[in-house]
């Protein structure tokens, strides 16, 4: 994509990237300030922990700074940055899941008890029924709470599509670029993810 086809924001990003490559660190700081909420937001929605999200988001910008020489400035900087952030979040979740693998006796590798043997290896674990949710919250809040909980139980790639599409407002084409997959695959993962979230609501509505 020639730089003339970039949006106004994209051209401004390209200018900041060029200045940064010429050694102006203030230009990189401007890029950080410009995208910190999006990168932090994606990381937080992916890992559901502020401290971990802070680490992932900072690492994302550091990797971007170190990789600026290989970045093609004719392409959108935002998509490239979100690609680094999304991949870092997915890697983090995979490492976390590996370290929390439940043994057949229901204990974590760390020794903490979490579940009976029947739950070991379950790929998707929607939250409990409506009766477990406090009665004094509204139906909409209940639904949002259940969906948020179910989102945490989705496979990482589905979760990433949900976060990028619904929370960051990216199109499926942009998600495809960010995740390195065809647009139609991104769309299919989105449909599958929403279907899994619907299953989680079966006991509620």
């Amino acid at each position, binding site marked *: 994509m020639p730089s003339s086809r970039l949006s106004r924001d994209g051209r401004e990003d390209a200018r900041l990237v060029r200045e940064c490559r010429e050694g102006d660190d203030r230009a990189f*700081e401007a890029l950080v300030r410009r995208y910190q909420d999006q990168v932090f937001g994606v990381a937080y929605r992916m890992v559901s922990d502020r401290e971990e999200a802070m680490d992932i988001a900072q690492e994302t910008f550091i990797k971007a700074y170190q990789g600026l020489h290989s970045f093609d400035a004719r392409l959108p900087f935002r998509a490239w940055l979100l690609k680094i952030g999304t991949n870092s979040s997915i890697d983090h979740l995979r490492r976390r899941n590996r370290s929390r693998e439940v043994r057949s006796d229901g204990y974590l590798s760390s020794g903490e008890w979490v579940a009976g043997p029947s739950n070991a290896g379950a790929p998707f674990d929607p939250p409990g029924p409506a009766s477990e949710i406090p009665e004094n919250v509204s139906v909409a809040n209940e639904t*949002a709470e259940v969906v948020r909980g179910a989102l945490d139980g989705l496979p990482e790639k589905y979760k990433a599509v949900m976060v990028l599409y619904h929370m960051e407002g990216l199109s499926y084409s942009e998600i495809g670029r960010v995740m390195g997959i065809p647009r139609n695959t991104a769309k299919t993962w989105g449909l599958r993810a*929403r279907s899994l979230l619907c299953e989680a609501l079966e006991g509620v509505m």
Partner: protein
Amino acid sequence: MLLRRHVQECDECGGYLKRMSAVVEALAGLEGVEAPDEFAGAVMSRLSALASGAGEPAGERRMRHGLVWLAAAGLGLAMAVALAAVRRGPGREAHDKLAGAGTA
């Protein structure tokens, strides 16, 4: 039209549509998350630390320093050997010449 009527009449499909709408609404309604105020400063500090080498893991920094010292020691030893050879070389030549002249 047919689809709309079916959804109104079929409990299963109607329920699914209701749940799907609730999911989309709930996802869209999740509040935005902003980075902490100190975020940009923290990133720039980490980059400065990396540039000055302070951000390297201690093990890597020790190894790098060790290699620098090893290289310096090797260079010093090579210079000492070269210097000794230079000093020794002409002295012996001169000695041999003198010895040759004495016998001639």
